C-alpha cells in the first residue's frame, strides 16, 4: 500500500543520524593505498628489480610504466569525482591517456615485424620474434592479478558513493585497476624490451577495462 509523502518524510527525518561525508579524496587515498598494497605484495613474491636504479632499465621501461601511472592517476581522479552525483562536463583525460598507452603495443608489434623482416637469421642472436621474453605471457597474468586489489578498492568506494554514470564508472574502474595493477607488478619485472613490456604489461589494462565494463555496473547500481 502506497504511503503518504508526509509520513515518509516524517519517517526519514526520525531516521536521520549525522553522517561522515564521502569525499573524492577518500576514494583517491583508498585506491592509492590499494596500489601500494599491490606493489608490496608483488615485491614480496617476485622481488624488487633493483636494476632499474643501476642503469639497466631501458627507456621503454620508464616510458611504459610512466604512462601506466598517468593513466592510473587520470582514471582514479575521474572515478572518484564520478562517485558523487553532479552534472556538468566530464574529464576526458582517461580516454586520452588510454589512447596514448595504446601506442605502446602498436609500437611493439611494428618493431617485432620490422626487426623480423631485416634480421640476419644465420646469426646466433635471435630476433625479437624468437626472444623468449617476447612470449613471456606470465607477466600479463601476474599484472592482471595485481590489479584485483585496486579493483576491489575502487568498487568498495563506488558503493559508498552514488555514481550516476554506471557504465562509465565501470570502464574507469577497469582502467584504474589495470594500469595501477600493471604498474605495481611492473617494478619487479626485469624484462624491459619493447616487445615484452609493450604487450604483456599493457594487456592487463585492456582485460581489466572489459571486466570493469561488464562486472562493475551490477555491483554499484543503487
Amino acid at each position, binding site marked *: 500500500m502506497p504511503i503518504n*509523502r508526509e509520513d515518509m*518524510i*516524517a519517517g526519514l*527525518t526520525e531516521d*536521520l543520524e549525522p553522517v561522515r*561525508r*564521502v569525499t573524492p579524496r577518500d576514494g583517491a587515498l583508498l585506491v592509492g593505498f590499494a596500489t601500494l598494497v599491490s606493489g608490496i605484495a608483488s615485491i614480496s613474491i617476485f622481488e624488487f628489480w633493483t636494476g632499474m636504479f643501476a642503469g639497466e632499465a631501458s627507456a621503454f621501461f620508464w616510458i611504459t610504466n610512466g604512462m601506466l601511472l598517468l593513466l592510473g592517476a587520470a582514471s582514479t581522479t575521474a572515478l572518484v569525482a564520478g562517485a558523487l*552525483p*553532479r552534472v556538468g562536463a566530464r574529464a576526458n583525460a582517461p580516454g586520452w591517456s588510454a589512447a596514448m598507452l595504446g601506442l605502446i603495443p602498436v609500437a611493439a608489434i611494428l618493431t617485432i615485424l620490422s626487426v623480423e623482416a631485416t634480421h640476419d637469421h644465420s646469426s646466433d642472436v635471435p630476433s625479437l620474434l624468437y626472444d623468449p621474453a617476447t612470449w613471456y605471457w606470465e607477466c600479463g597474468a601476474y599484472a592482471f592479478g595485481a590489479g584485483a586489489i585496486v579493483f576491489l578498492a575502487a568498487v568498495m568506494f563506488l558503493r559508498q558513493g552514488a555514481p550516476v554514470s554506471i557504465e562509465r564508472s565501470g570502464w574507469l574502474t577497469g582502467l584504474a585497476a589495470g594500469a595501477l595493477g600493471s604498474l605495481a607488478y611492473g617494478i619487479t619485472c626485469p624484462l624491459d624490451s619493447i616487445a615484452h613490456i609493450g604487450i604483456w604489461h599493457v594487456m592487463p589494462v585492456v582485460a581489466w577495462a572489459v571486466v570493469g565494463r561488464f562486472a562493475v555496473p551490477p555491483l554499484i547500481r543503487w
Partner: protein
Amino acid sequence: MIADEATFARLMASAQNGDKAGYNVLLSEAGMWLERYFRRRVPPHQLDDLVQDVLMALHAKRATYDPARPFLPWLAAIARYRWVDHLRKVYKHEAQEIEDDDAIEDSDEEVTLARVSLERLFGHLNEKQAAVIEMVKIEGLSIREASERTGQSESLVKVNIHRGLKKLATLVEEAE
C-alpha cells in the same frame, strides 16, 4: 514558493550533522522541487512515487553531498539517475511483454506512459521502428495489425519494437 539554492545548501549541510528540524523542511521543499522537475517527464499518476523514490535516495546517499558545491545540481543528478532507472524498468517490462505475448493488451496507463516518454525521442528512430512503436504502443494495435498495416512480418514488428525501445532507453541514459 520553493526554497532557493542557498537555503537548500544550508539545510543539507546541517542535515549531514543531524539537524532533524532542518531536514524535515529540506525534504518537503525538495519534494516540491522534484514535482516540478518530473512534471514533464512522467505521467501524473507516477509522479508521487518517483518523488518519494528520489527522496529516499537522497536520504540513503546524503553523505555524498559536498557542502562546498551547489545543492540543486546534486539533487538533479540523483533525480535524473532515478528517472532513467524508472524508464529502464518500464522499457524492460514492455520488451518482456512483447517477448511473452503476441496479442498485447494495452491499458490506458501504458499508452499514456508510452506517449509521454517517447514523444520527444521519436525523431532518433528509423521510420520502421517509429511506425511500429507508435502503432502498437501508442495507438494500441496488436502485433498482427501492425504487421498488416506496415507490410513488416510479425517477427520484424517485434524486433523493431524491441530495438526501438532499447535505443530510446540508451538515448535517455546518454542524455546529459
